[in-house]
Structures are given as structure tokens and as C-alpha cells.
């Protein structure tokens, strides 16, 4: 779920644009550097972005019956790295708004912050941490993807709570309200996304040619 067009007041919409900007600009810089060295990486990055878009359109049949979908943030963060994901995420969000009326232009900053910045960084952090703690590959991937997904929605709920604090209990109450409807229902879906990502990454590891290893694109080296 992205925050719909016009749902945030002007000040919040602008604020989230400003907050997301440094991350996106850093991502753009990194991508421009990659493209200067390897112009053909354009195709690979675009294909990856399109893949992320299509993946996010695969509907998960959820318990509550509400329509939800994988965020792909965990997969993206592990395979591409968070800075690149910030830019791909903004592009994907723009297409979701204009091709599916999902999300919005005034809320693009807020959605980018939760979906293309918080989610990937949490997933990436969990992935690195789990690796350092010596957890197995599958468990690390699962935790990264599931928590990345969940973090996205918890953050979205916080964004909504900031905009619309509860008249009686303020920010905390509002966070509970929005979290209750947008994040708690997401727990089974986060678990599903975690499992999904494990299967995808395991299947991928045998399938991607070395030259496609996108970690190189993400500037991580081989």
C-alpha cells in the first residue's frame, strides 16, 4: 500500500520530498558514475527496475482479503544495494502512480522514503547483521526481506500518524491506529515475502551469469 494522492497535507508532502532527496541524489550520483564506466549497465538497471515493478504487481492472496503485494525491497537491497534501490524505487513509484493510479505525485516523496529508503536500508542492515552473527544464508535472507517489508509498512503508518495525530492520545495513538490497519495486517505478508525471497535468491544463485552479478553495479565489487 502506498499513500494515496492528496492524503498528506502540503507541509508533510514537501517535508518528505526534502527528506528523501539526499538519498535519491546520492543514488543518482552512484548510478551516473556506474554508467560513465559501463554505459551498457543502463539496460541491466532498467531491466531490474522493470522486474521490481512487475514483481510488485504480483498479488499475494492475503488473509484479510485486502489486496497487497510484495515490496521487493529485501530482494532489491540484497541484489542491487540500497543506493541504487533508492533511484529504481522512485522510478517504479512514479510508474505505479501514472500507470496504475497507485500512490501519487504529491505523496511520492513520502512513499519513496518508506518504500525505497527505509525498507531497503533496514533489509540491508539486517542482511549484514545476520551475516555477522553467523546466521545461515536462508535465515539471513528471510529476516532481511521480512523485516524490510514490515519496516516499510510500519514507517508508512508512522508517516500517517505524524500527519494525523490522534485527538486524544496523540502520535502514539495514531501510530497504533494506522499501524493496526496497515502494518499488523502486513505481518503474514511480510512472512510470505521473506519466504518468497529465500526461494528466489536460492533459485537465482544458479541462474545468473557472473557478468550480471549486480553487486558490481551496486558498487560493492565482486
Amino acid at each position, binding site marked *: 500500500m502506498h499513500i494515496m494522492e492528496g492524503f498528506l497535507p502540503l507541509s508533510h508532502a514537501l517535508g518528505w520530498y526534502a527528506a528523501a532527496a539526499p538519498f535519491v541524489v546520492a543514488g543518482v550520483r552512484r548510478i551516473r558514475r556506474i554508467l560513465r564506466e559501463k554505459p551498457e549497465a543502463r539496460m541491466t538497471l532498467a531491466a531490474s527496475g522493470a522486474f521490481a515493478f512487475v514483481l510488485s504487481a504480483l498479488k499475494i492472496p492475503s488473509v484479510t482479503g485486502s489486496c497487497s503485494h510484495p515490496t521487493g525491497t529485501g530482494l532489491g537491497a540484497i541484489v542491487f544495494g540500497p543506493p541504487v534501490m533508492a533511484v529504481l524505487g522512485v522510478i517504479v513509484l512514479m510508474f505505479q502512480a501514472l*500507470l496504475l493510479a497507485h500512490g501519487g505525485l504529491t505523496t511520492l516523496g513520502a512513499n519513496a522514503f518508506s518504500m525505497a529508503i527505509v525498507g531497503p536500508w533496514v533489509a540491508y542492515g539486517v542482511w549484514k547483521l545476520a551475516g555477522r552473527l553467523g546466521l545461515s544464508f536462508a535465515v539471513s535472507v528471510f529476516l532481511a526481506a521480512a523485516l524490510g517489508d514490515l519496516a516499510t509498512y510500519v514507517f508508512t503508518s508512522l508517516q500517517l500518524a505524524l500527519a494525523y495525530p490522534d*485527538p486524544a492520545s496523540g502520535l502514539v495513538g495514531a501510530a497504533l491506529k494506522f499501524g493496526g490497519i496497515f502494518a499488523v495486517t502486513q505481518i503474514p505478508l511480510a512472512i510470505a515475502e521473506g519466504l*518468497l525471497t529465500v*526461494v528466489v535468491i536460492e533459485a537465482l544463485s544458479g*541462474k*545468473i551469469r557472473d557478468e550480471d552479478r549486480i553487486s558490481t553495479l551496486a558498487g560493492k565489487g565482486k
Partner: protein
Amino acid sequence: MSVGTLDRAASLNHWRHRALGEKALIGLGFLVLALVLPPWPGAALVAVAVLAFTFLGARVPLRLWLATVVLPLGFLASGGLMLLVQITGDGVSLAPGGAEKAAFLCLRAMAATFCLMFLALTTPMADLFAGLRRLAVPAEIVELALLTYRFVFLIADEAAAMTAAQRARLGHSSRRRWLRSTAMVAANLLPRALARARRMETGLAARGWQGEMRVLSSRVPVCRKTVALVLAVQLAVLLAVVLA
């Protein structure tokens, strides 16, 4: 609604050949008004105006418009509901003035969504890319967006075909199988997307690609009468709000 529905509608729209500037002035101009003006009567007037441009001007089919508006309405229903209630020490109760707040929020969000839908249903993506270039967005990023756009449809078709093939072999017969099948789609889709990227590289190199992706985009001159009309309507909305 599939990925291509709105895109197709925009490409075949009655106003397809109008200048991007005019459509942006309507879509983005009213969007700003919807956010800046007080919801009543501001957003309400914006909604009426933008709907008039959508249906009377661009002649967007009503059925398509209704099918598109369903998804944002779902979000609005659950999000708006949260403004009706409050959490106190004793539990959940109706918030004082919540109904009014929720109604105002709905009004503003709906008006803004109508503006977004106007843009989505009348403006082909090609024009938007040309517009982004003119706005001095880095060329690499516009190219990346353009290629992503192109790949989206190819990859979406592949994903749809794969899903149909799995359904035909009962791949979605239980939740567990569904999860496995969907993961298999994703795992097969990414290498195919990357293989496509490599072939595209060869294909474009054969056309003399040197690292910069220049194309000739046709630019329609802005119609002054239309711009004047739109500005007049926007001014009228502003005045109506100030006077009210």
C-alpha cells in the same frame, strides 16, 4: 486492470496530441490548488473542474475511469476511517469533530486523485519523458526511466504467461504451492529480464549507440486559448474560495 490499461487509454485519448504543457497545467495546477486551498469549498471546486476537463474535454470513458478510481478509494476508506475514531485510556471511541476532519480529508484526497488520474489517462508516457528532459532531469535518469518503461511491458507479459502456465498445471492449488510457484516465476523472470537487457545492448549497438540515447521527440505548440481557459478556471476557483 492490467499494467497496460491506463497506458493504452492515454495513447488513444482524444487529447493525445495536445501539448504536454496544457495537460500539465490542468493536472498539476489543480493538484497544487487541491492541496493549498481549504478542502471546502476549494477541493470540491477543484474536483468539479478537473472532472469537467476529464470528461467534457478529454472524453475519458466513464467505465475506465470508474475501474481506475476503485484502488485509491479502498485506501481512502480505511485511512479516512482512522480519523473518525480516537484512542483514549478507556479504549476506542468516536473522535470529537472526527467526522468533519475525515470528510475534509476525503474531499482533498479525492480531488487530488482526480488530478492524478487526469494526467494518467490523457498523457502518454513518451510526452512525460520529453518533459522530464526539458526540466533538466539528468539524461541518464530519464533514459533509465524510459528503458524501464519499455521493459515493464515486455516483462509483465512474460510474468502473465508464466502465471497462466502454472495455473494450467495447478501450481496455485494451495497456499504453499502458490508461494513456491510465485517464487519460481520471480526466479525465472530476473535472468530473463537480464538476458533481454543484454540482447537490447547488442540491438542498440547495431544502431550506432555510443552511450547517449538521443531521439527526436515531436513537440506540439501550446494552444494559447486553452491555456487562457484553464488559467481562468483556476483563477475562478481561487476567487470563489477567497470570497467564500
